[in-house]
């Protein structure tokens, strides 16, 4: 097995590419780069390629992770270079690393993600009080409503999934850094955490105005 972990950024026009379209884009890029991607067996072979944590459409990321398998060894630096020559604007490979055969799948190992969230002043009903974040984090429970698979609404407590949250200095509006649990065990989306914070602080904003950038993805340990 020749497994590789790819760290890439997704910005500019590419941030509007949806998850499945991105999968297809990466597959085509690997063909353009003539990389020896391994395919699954069966009637409908598909490339052995997976993205660690799908990114919502419109969210930027500086540090996405994907895992790919090749039929033969490829020098990581060369893989990055040949992919970067054929990726559309906004997608850029930052690093390729050889993965150990025994390493768990990236998707399963994923635990936390970092985000920067920005809201323009004109999109907020007022400024966030100075101690709002501290008080918000002091709570034992942060309940939000989510739609289950069956379409029914249910309440979930996302407080354990909010690892860190801090306000950064900015000229206008609101700039926040958050660390949230992500992955199969506990998953909190940045829009959920921020909506809960603003609701708690009594500030009105349209979630569609959130400008979100994922800045890091981390595996356990």
């Amino acid at each position, binding site marked *: 097995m020749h497994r590789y972990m790819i760290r890439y950024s997704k910005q500019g026009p590419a941030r*509007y590419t*949806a998850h499945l*379209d991105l999968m297809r884009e990466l*597959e085509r890029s690997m063909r353009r780069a003539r990389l020896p991607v391994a395919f699954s067996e069966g009637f409908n072979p598909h490339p052995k390629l997976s993205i660690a944590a799908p990114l919502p459409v*419109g969210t930027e990321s500086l540090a996405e992770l994907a895992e790919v398998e090749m039929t033969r060894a490829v020098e990581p630096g060369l893989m990055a270079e040949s992919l970067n020559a054929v990726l559309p604007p*906004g997608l850029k490979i930052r690093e390729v690393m050889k993965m150990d055969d025994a390493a768990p799948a990236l998707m399963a190992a994923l635990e936390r993600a970092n985000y920067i969230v920005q809201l323009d002043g004109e999109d907020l009903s007022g400024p966030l009080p100075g101690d709002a974040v501290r008080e918000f984090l002091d709570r034992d429970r942060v309940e939000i409503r989510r739609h289950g698979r069956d379409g029914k609404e249910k309440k979930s407590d996302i407080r354990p999934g909010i690892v860190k949250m801090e306000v950064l200095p900015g000229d206008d509006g609101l700039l926040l850094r958050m660390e949230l649990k992500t992955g199969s065990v506990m998953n909190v989306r940045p829009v959920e955490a921020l909506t809960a914070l603003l609701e708690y602080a009594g500030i009105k904003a349209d979630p569609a105005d959130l400008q979100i950038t994922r800045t890091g993805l981390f595996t356990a340990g």
Partner: protein
Amino acid sequence: MKRLEKALRRVQKPGRYTGGEWNAVRKDWADIDVKMAFAFPDVYEVGMSHLGLQIIYHAVNMRADALLERVFAPWTDMEEQMRERRLPLFSLESHRPVRDFDILGFTLQYELSFTNILNMLDLAGIPVRSGDRAAGGYPLVVAGGPCAYNPEPLADFIDVFIIGEGEDAVNDLLDAWLESRRRGEDRRRLLLRLAGIDGFYVPSLYRVEYDEKGHLEKVTPVAAEVPAVVKKRVVADLDGAVFPTRPLVPAVEAVHNRAMLEVQRGCTRGCRFCQAGVIYRPVREKEPQTLVRQAEEVLHNTGWGEISLTSLSTSDYSQIKPLVSELTGNCAETGVNISLPSLRVDAFSVDLAKEVQKVRRSSLTFAPEAGTQRLRDVINKGVTEDNLLEAVSAAFTGGWQAVKLYFMIGLPTETDADLEGIASLARLVLERGRSLSRSPGRVKVTVSVSSFVPKAHTPFQWEPQDTMDELRRKQAFMRQRMRGRGLVFNYHDPESSFLEAVFSRGDRKLSALLESAWRAGCHFDGWSEFFDFDRWMKACEAAGIDPAGYAQRRFDYRETLPWDHIGAGLSKKYLAREHRRALAGEITPDCRTGKCPGCGLCPTMEIKPRLAGGETVAPLYDSL
């Protein structure tokens, strides 16, 4: 920019509007002499599946002095955002307002996209009527594509139509525009200049007169340099013509997500209902070595895992066997699939399909078009029941379990016996499948019937369309006979076929109908979720238009037809002769077999059919 970002964050598929796809061309606006926007009046996924867009994009952007950027009809969620935020229609490449371009070119692929053209002009802040654009520095509004062969319903909105193939014509357009600007000409001088070029039709330079019944009487040019008949453009050397081997790769999954390789253009089989068979004459094949080279380039430049060999009838390409063998050999190593979208109804075609499709995933599709030999002779569809049974037998023994059959109802001279014929043919195919397939229980035959729409420039252009009640009766008749396990029956709603017929045979008076329908809110009429027939009928009333007079009236041979001043190259006499032969049930062979039926195209256009290897005639497989 901020307004755009805010809009994009609120729509379902923002990738439809942002551009930045692989192979998209970005040029420096300030360095370019003439800027053109290519407008597809439907949503991104549909427009991006269109080969014509890729060809024109390439033809213009390879020039150093010109640029072409794309724009599609915004989906309703985006339109709402744009209108609310006063965001004018913008191009995908540079996100500039369409209003800032020198030329705005629409492609006319189907009649039910016409209201979207008006809506896009309006979203761009451009007056919809050409008469209101004489001053103000608006872009020149151009339109081309198959529906330009009856341009009259759009005559009040479009400045110039390009009739025929666009590869060379678009360069003539850009050159003429540049020359006109160098000379400081006004809009009218520019239009006169364009009207003097082959294939360019400027509707405002023609006077249209009607008789006392309101039927078209005369269409006459208003100036000496304006031709009485506008001759279509044809690319004589298709093999050497520009072909996009670096096509745009859509970022949002398109309807067809694969490389397209046009193996030939034109089809001379002469099906009497078929407009494409007329307007793309003569047949011009590309050389197999050209195709092998282009296939390799396009696959390497896009990374697509599938390549489609396109044309009106790909199994008719004289070198198809050697081409497919060579391509399958080359593609096997890279895991690329080959698809053949338009297969003739015979065993030869199934053999081809077998060769390219190692895994029998999907179904095979055949189009016998009519249910009895009598009616197939009327429409000149050279397919026999034996051909069909041979084809499906080969398919079922070859491992396919599903077959799709396309038919048309409402064809001239059709009786209920022809409809019975469709049903019994479908059952015959189903039985054949059950006796031959390895898993008889899973055999499925899907029958899709569309409703006949008379089209301009075809032998059936004078024929009325069935009334909607009659089409509904026929559909119900069919549905009753298509029940049972293994049979699936599909049909189209008669209302949209009716409207399609109105516009396909419409005259200039329909411009008023289009405008009032669009103002009443009609748009995306080709999408069943938006098509609002009642609204259209109210618009007809408001505009004083009797739609049945266009769709359901038998036109007279002596009448001036709304498209008589558009020259597709076939003589009207030939079309009338073909029409009479149809009614008499006489067939007319393909001219590639060596016998010229005298359609008039070659002498009029000073052109000849061109087959691979430089031949002009060659035996067709099924006439051997």
